[in-house]
């Protein structure tokens, strides 16, 4: 297998894009990435998306987006793995280039949730869970996460306020990211007073429904000199799965797929967790940030909220997380999220993050994209060349 690199990145702002159809968002991000790469053409396109069929009544996104991007005859396919669709599409692009099958491939993550009112989107999102045994008896996504959070609080003796540092730091960072949905800070007091969604989860634990697209152009590492773009090495992009139902897990507050994909990523990259300079966590809900940090080996079980309170995860802390605002602050355009995380990590490695968000001396940046209640997890590691 060949080593690969990201040569171009692109993104749209994360917003409620009522004006744009899905194809336009995707093409915008994709061409931004192609121009950033200094390229004119791609040989393959992998589209990460979860809900185009349910919400826009449009499937077949591979062909649609390749067509509208001006590449109507290339290999193109949609990759679906719930909220992990984005990074799962990146994984396919990486494999296609690493295998020698393609010389230049793109991954674009795109999601349009504002095709319908909020309640319908919630129902569509719940299709990432077990339809027969979770969603159809009244469990939303927030409900599944609430079950994890309640048990976690019970086992480790935390109270609600101990989770405040996660959304507070996400909003703190998001205010300096021009592409973020929520560009304002929040306080612990606001967090504690937020509207309950599924107790103990409230509105400020939850990432917002939003639209957006992000894209990467991937080439063999040995060819980066032929492009104008600033290259970032892809040292690992590893995927793992777990049971679809939360209730079928050995331990519902351990993200086993996150453990497995993170361990595989460290092994592929030949590094240890302590070598990582920053971590783009999948903070769809505050509890998931804690479980993700623990599963990735950055904290012992039950210790993540304590480290967060000590400031370890802040921009100037030992392991900055969600440096562009994460899902909570930047927004969570479901199937695009995993690609946003990688675009942001690439900016950190290139040294082109906004001043207030740039982490010092980034050598290795890690991202983790989580689908469902943890049933698909993709962990990626980017490295400075």
């Amino acid at each position: 297998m060949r080593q690969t690199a990201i040569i171009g990145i692109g993104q749209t702002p994360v917003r409620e894009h009522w004006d744009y159809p899905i194809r336009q968002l995707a093409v915008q991000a994709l061409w931004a990435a192609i121009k950033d790469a200094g390229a004119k053409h791609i040989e393959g396109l992998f589209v990460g998306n979860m809900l185009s069929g349910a919400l826009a009544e449009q499937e077949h996104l591979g062909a649609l987006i390749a067509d509208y991007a001006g590449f109507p005859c290339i290999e193109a396919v949609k990759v679906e793995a719930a909220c992990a669709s984005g990074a799962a599409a990146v994984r396919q692009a990486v494999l296609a280039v690493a295998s020698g099958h393609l010389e230049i491939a793109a991954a674009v993550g795109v999601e349009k949730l504002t095709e319908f009112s909020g309640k319908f989107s919630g129902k569509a999102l719940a299709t990432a869970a077990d339809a027969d045994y979770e969603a159809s008896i009244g469990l939303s996504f927030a409900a599944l996460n609430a079950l994890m959070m309640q048990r976690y609080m019970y086992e480790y003796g935390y109270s609600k306020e101990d989770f405040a540092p996660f959304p507070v730091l996400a909003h703190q960072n998001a205010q300096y990211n021009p592409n973020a949905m929520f560009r304002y800070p929040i306080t612990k007091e606001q967090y504690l007073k937020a509207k309950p969604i599924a107790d103990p989860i409230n509105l400020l634990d939850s990432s917002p429904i939003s639209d957006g697209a992000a894209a990467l152009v991937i080439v063999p590492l040995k060819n980066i000199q032929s492009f104008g773009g600033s290259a970032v090495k892809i040292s690992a992009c590893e995927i793992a799965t777990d049971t679809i139902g939360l209730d079928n897990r050995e331990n519902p507050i351990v993200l086993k797929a996150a453990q497995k994909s993170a361990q595989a990523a460290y092994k592929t990259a030949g590094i240890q967790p302590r070598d990582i300079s920053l971590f783009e966590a999948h903070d769809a809900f505050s509890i998931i940030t804690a479980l993700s940090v623990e599963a990735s080996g950055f904290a012992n079980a039950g210790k993540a909220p304590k480290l967060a309170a000590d400031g370890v995860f802040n921009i100037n802390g030992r392991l900055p997380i969600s440096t562009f605002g994460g899902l909570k602050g930047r927004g969570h355009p479901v199937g695009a999220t995993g690609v946003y995380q990688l675009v942001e990590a690439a900016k950190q490695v290139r040294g082109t993050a906004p001043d207030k968000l740039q982490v010092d001396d980034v050598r290795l940046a890690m991202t983790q994209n989580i689908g469902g209640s943890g049933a698909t997890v993709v962990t990626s590691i980017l490295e400075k060349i």
Partner: protein
Amino acid sequence: MDIPRYWRLRNQRYRLEGTECIECGQRNFPPRCICPHCKSDSLKSFRFSGRGTVYSFSTIYQALDTFDKDIPYSIALVKLDEGPLITTQLADVGPDEIQIGQPVEMVIRKIYEDGENGPIQYGYKFRPALKE
């Protein structure tokens, strides 16, 4: 959920029917066609007693549209006496009366009505166990 799917799930919804592996004895709910533990395909149906304890719980204030009119309602992961966890709604209990570890038992209740004229769908919920 439309009628064909609901009908197919009747033995699970009304009788808590899962599977037991003939090779290794592992019991599963929902039913499996391959044993997750030993990969055997020799499985027989197994009816759970419907008794267990609360492993985790939540009260829902913002629901999927079908369940909107039921809010607030409570849900739980229940550890069944025979081993597995099951995801369920709770019945006959207020949000402040639920505790992890509390004994619960299965009852059949209305899960939801499918619109004004649609059928009413029933299935398992769990309530605090009645004292002997």
